[in-house]
């Protein structure tokens, strides 16, 4: 008994000598291209960004003399701190809304539609809008929300309002509406997927044990769908935190997010300051994603 237990791990540790070098190191060779690519084009640029955030900014150029000037400028500027707060507020709002609006749809598709074909058709129907360019999807909200936009026209025809609602366009509200519509599908997809994987017998068992529909949802269905919610939340967070196009197109450049500031600073060749904002944004992202990942093991859910 002892002998076999001791022998079997060593059999794994020391491969048979006839195994070729290629066989033994196969996975390293397979991994190398991807790992090298990511190191050069993902890690290096991010490291460079952190490094440059400490460089000295002159009017049109940056020089590699280390300084904390740009950081001081960011931390002492009300405009930038406001942008940080606005980014966080908008992210939380959009995240909450995508969850609240998306979950019932996912619940319907994942739990109430039992026919696989209908399920697929509904999911595809949700994805089809993605086949139009992101920027055109954003700009399509303008004729929807404007003073003479479709929503105001419909509401006035119905006699629900007398005056067109002006706050619909070129405000933070329009940015929120646009982002929710664009990103809500990223919440619906993963949640519907998790819901459709729930073993029917679990629900039947709870029903047989006398649980009410609400209890079943609260104690069985919702907890099992949580990994989907977390994956969806990661998708939405990543995209909303890095946003700038929706904000500038639907707010008439009134709502400045951290992303907008980066774009503006790069536009005026103030690389060091752009890098500072980039590092701040990275910090926010890391905290958010780490928090979300601690709730669910992404690798196990595949």
């Amino acid at each position, binding site marked *: 008994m002892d002998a076999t237990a001791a022998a079997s791990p060593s059999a794994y540790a020391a491969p048979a000598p006839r195994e070729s070098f290629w066989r033994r190191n196969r996975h390293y060779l397979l991994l190398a291209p991807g790992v090298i690519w990511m190191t050069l084009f993902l890690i290096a640029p*991010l490291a460079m960004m952190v490094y440059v955030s400490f460089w000295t900014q002159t009017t049109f150029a940056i020089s590699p003399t280390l300084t904390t000037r740009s950081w001081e400028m960011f931390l002492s500027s009300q405009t930038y701190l406001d942008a940080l707060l606005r980014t966080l507020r908008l992210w939380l709002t959009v995240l909450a809304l995508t969850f609240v609006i998306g979950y019932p749809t996912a619940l319907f598709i994942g739990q109430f539609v039992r026919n696989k074909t209908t399920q697929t058709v509904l999911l595809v129907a949700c994805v*089809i809008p993605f086949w139009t360019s992101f920027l055109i999807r954003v700009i399509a909200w303008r004729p929807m929300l404007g003073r003479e936009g479709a929503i105001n026209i419909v509401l006035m025809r119905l006699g629900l309002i007398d005056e067109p609602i002006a706050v619909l366009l070129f405000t933070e509200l329009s940015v929120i509406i646009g982002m929710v*519509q664009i990103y809500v599908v990223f919440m619906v997809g993963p949640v519907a997927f998790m819901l459709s994987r729930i073993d029917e017998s679990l629900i039947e068992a709870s029903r047989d044990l006398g649980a009410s529909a609400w209890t079943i949802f609260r104690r069985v269905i919702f907890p099992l769908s949580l990994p989907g919610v977390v994956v969806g939340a990661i998708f939405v967070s990543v995209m909303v935190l890095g946003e700038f196009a929706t904000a500038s197109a639907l707010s008439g450049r009134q709502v400045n997010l951290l992303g907008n500031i980066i774009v503006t600073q790069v536009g005026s060749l103030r690389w060091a300051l752009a890098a500072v904002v980039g590092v701040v944004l990275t910090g926010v992202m890391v905290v958010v994603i780490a928090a979300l990942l601690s709730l669910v093991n992404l690798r196990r859910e595949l």
Partner: protein
Amino acid sequence: MHHLKVTRGALAVYTALFILFLYGPFVVMGILSFQKGPEGGPQFPILEWSTFWYSHIFGFAPPSRIAPLPIGQALTRSLTLAFATMVVSTILGTLTAQAFRTKFRGSGVVFYLVVLGMMVPGVLLGLGMALVADQLGVARNWWSTAFVLHVVYTFPFAFLVMLAIFNRFDQSVEEAAWALGVPPGRTFRKVTFPMIFPGVLSAMLFAFTLSYDEFPRTLFTGGPNVTMPLAIYGTFAVEIHPNLFAFGVLTTLFSFALLTVYGVLMGASVRRARLRAQGVQEDIA
């Protein structure tokens, strides 16, 4: 039970409203693309129905103060870029996922290194890459600096798709082929590849569409020659016209065509697999 029916009905109505919310802007966009030109703006009311903006896109409209969308070359660049990105990230994704079929030390680190590529906001990566290129004195171009970032973005999607495929993959079939003396290359072509083909196709589809529409990663790294999304973004800075909407309608139709091709290929692959299975069964019988 009655309770459940009510919930089901309510959720069905809700889902219908939800889909309406998703499609609302498209319907409006579709309607406004038939606005009268060149006087009509990108808003209601429709002055007069016309297809002016469609002919404007193709350069058939009589000259007016509204510049045509700079799409010809931009579209070619975007398609080329998307194609190259698709090929490279599908290969990288398949190789990396293949490596993950055996357990090895540091797999967690590699996994998160790859997945990080889809998690870092594009604007940050674009900024970082622009800084690197600037310091190395490398010119920024859509086919160089932008291309590598597109792969960084789409490779994780291809990797995850392939990983999911390999997880559901019966390894004993491959082993049987090896045991029967089929060389590894031939095994891959005749056994492994047909089995993972639907996954490869999905990975390619992901990579192509994500790259084709990618904008924040290209903004700082695309260089002087714009891709399609950059061309569209450029028109935002000035006034927008209904030609943008007409273009949106056309691209949607193009995407539908692409999706149909994907569906047909996928269907054919499934059918072929079923036929082959039948053939094998008949052989046995």
